[in-house]
């Protein structure tokens, strides 16, 4: 990449199962103030703003109307993406590299507790003509996918339970996690089925929170006093939106996104990366995504490595040290940005009890949940890429 782009500030709120005392605007205001302080910038200096939100999650149509005031973005370039926060990072990077902005802010939040009937809302994400009339809840899509994934890869249900237990346990060391718990795989396997073979304890619960990230071009980063996390690579992609024509075993959207990100970051072997923060909306998704990221050549290997503890915090490739979505809570469009926050803290050496040694390169990955095939990958490093 010719022109370096870095994250020079992050601000975030604690994830909470519900936040009845705060509006989404107050969550955004808190995260924005923290991010601007962290980056050492004034809101007035920022050239452009990106927010990631979906109308139906917000309960407001044309949600971008309500974004500028609490971010200090009035009469500034501002737009919304109905995508995950990692797409927002890619968007900001492109704005900076095209030369129209030096400082760009990306915001994403979750006020999931406002949605009283999330399952019912998700029904509306199904194809209205071919799928919705069949009357199944979209968790069933995850159940079906998990079933074929286990069948085709040889990964066992116990492995998925181990993922859930690992991430909930990791969250015990994360003060902003909403669902920390010393869970054992046995506990997970005794929780009821939601959509066979998917169990309740393998589904991330929703949480409220907000993340604001400040990105800067090379010159601005060098002037900043904060410890920069350089963007080494970004990628995003969709597989088929249609249930009937997608790949149900492999997360193609992540394979394609990762390929681009690795190429930009000049990474030949993904194991050069020190830690991974990947989507684990459903426990099996962590394994599916790790395979798509190229860490395992075949499924059974992913299962064996998990058993050997490779993805634990003290393993060779720690995955979701933060607790992931299972441990921290699923924060809708902010999910990817909470993964980025963990990378930034680890790269800066500010992850306190979770801090890993020698972190120079980390990867964050997101998925937009059922029934989508939309995902993104961001690779961050302490060194500016060549």
């Amino acid at each position: 990449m010719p022109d370096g782009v870095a994250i020079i500030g992050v601000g975030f709120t604690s994830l909470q199962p519900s936040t009845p005392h705060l509006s989404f605007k107050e969550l955004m205001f808190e995260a924005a103030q923290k991010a601007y302080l962290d980056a050492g910038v004034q809101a007035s200096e920022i050239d452009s703003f990106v927010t990631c939100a979906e109308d139906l999650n917000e309960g407001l149509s044309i949600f971008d109307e309500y974004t500028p005031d609490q971010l200090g973005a009035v009469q500034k370039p501002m737009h919304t993406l109905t995508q995950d926060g990692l797409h927002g990072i890619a968007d900001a990077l492109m704005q900076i590299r095209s030369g129209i902005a030096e400082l760009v802010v990306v915001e994403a939040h979750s006020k999931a507790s406002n949605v009283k009937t999330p399952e019912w809302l998700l029904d509306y994400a199904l194809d209205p003509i071919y799928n919705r009339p069949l009357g199944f809840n979209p968790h069933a899509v995850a159940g079906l996918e998990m079933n074929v994934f286990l069948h085709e890869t040889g990964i066992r249900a116990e492995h998925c339970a181990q993922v859930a237990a690992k991430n909930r346990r990791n969250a015990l060391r994360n003060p902003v996690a909403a669902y920390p718990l010393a869970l054992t795989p046995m506990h997970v396997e005794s929780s009821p089925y939601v959509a066979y073979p998917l169990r309740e304890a393998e589904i991330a619960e929703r949480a409220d929170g907000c993340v604001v990230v400040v990105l800067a071009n090379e010159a601005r980063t060098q002037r900043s006093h904060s410890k920069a996390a350089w963007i080494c690579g970004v990628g995003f992609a969709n597989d088929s939106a249609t249930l009937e024509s997608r790949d149900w075993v492999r997360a193609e959207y992540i394979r394609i996104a990762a390929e681009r990100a690795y190429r930009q970051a000049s990474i030949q072997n993904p194991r050069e990366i020190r830690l991974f923060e990947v989507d684990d909306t459903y426990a099996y998704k962590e394994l599916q995504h790790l395979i798509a990221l190229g860490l395992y050549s075949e499924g059974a290997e992913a299962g064996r490595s998990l058993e050997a503890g490779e993805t634990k915090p003290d393993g060779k490739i720690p995955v979701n040290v933060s607790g992931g979505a299972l441990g921290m809570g699923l924060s809708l469009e902010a999910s990817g940005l909470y993964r980025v926050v963990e990378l930034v803290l680890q790269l800066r050496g500010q992850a306190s009890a979770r801090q890993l040694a020698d972190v120079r390169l980390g990867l964050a990955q997101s998925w937009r949940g059922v029934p989508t095939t939309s995902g993104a990958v961001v690779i961050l490093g302490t060194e500016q890429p060549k």
Partner: protein
Amino acid sequence: MSARKVAVVGAGMTKFMHRALETPKELAWLAAKSALDSAVMNLSQIDCVVLGTAPDAFDGVHMKGEYLSDGCGGWKKPYLRCYVGGGTGVYAVAQAWFHVASGLFDTALVVCEEKMSSCLPHPQAAFLTIFDHITEQPLKPNLLWIFALEQTRYMETYGIALEDIARVSVKNKRNALDHPAAQLGANLTIKDILASEVMAWPVHRLMVSPTSDGAVAVVLAGEEIARRLSDRPVWIQGVGWCLDTAYWTNRDLAYPEYVEKAAWTAYRMAGIREPRKEINIAEPYDPFAYKELHHLEGLQLAPKGQAPKLLADGVFERNGDLPVTPSGGLLGVGNPIAAAGLMKICELFWQLRGEAGPRQVPGKPERGVAQAWGDLMQVGTVVVMGTKEPA
């Protein structure tokens, strides 16, 4: 500026209509295919896809961008949906511009789709949900009301007569008679417009664009590919967008400052100092008749309060000094929200290439500006395009 130059190399659209039989995905693909065909390209040559579409509430589909993705051609490709309410159609081109200008992608397919007819009995009901839960929704406002407020403020501030506003409808609906995809082309007089039903004073039915189904697409390419693909690429010379406060009740609605800011961002990038002299053709956003005039002033193409007079003098006619909305605009071609904005970009593409058929403005125009607007009278999005390669 060091950014890579970007051009539009293909454009296509479906007919705008009241109730299309096609599904939203099918509409999106019909437009995408026709844009690809016009660029003589196929989907495998497209590096990324950008979708623009307005509220999910119209289609009743949650995560509508994801639902539409394969219809748009965003299959096993980088794909995203950008969104600034009614301003989306023009903004989507700015979004795709920086996808290519950044060097991350060489080509981009921009698709804007809207199917409003699925919202029964009328999509206006979906607009109730755009207002603030606490301070506004209890008053049960709708778009007609708030735009009636803005139109009144505009007329009062500058002493503008209703006839001056009605003239926009006459011009645009007449221009649309020459547009093969138009929904509401008509030969009407000022008297006809003023005799139509009052929706919310001073807004009359024929001063309001219809609700529509339709899709539009354009193909963008970086300079190397653009030159190779086409001997007449239309260059994107400037882009700008600007979002004002959500508290619209605290603003003076007589003048759209956010449009001015977005316009100057785009003009500066395009090296334009005197917009009135350096722009040959304008496609401002005209969902309501007064908005075209309001936006021409925001775009610096008419002094404040003077756009109605220039219109009456014939300056904005197709053969006038500054042809405005030669397509027929939203009032004439139709208003499938995001798709309507992108239709304006298509019109510039065809006009600047001399391919606009009976709509062609005389004098070989070299540069045009398209603009859209949306949210709570709050966002301005502007794209400047021209036949000359940017410096």
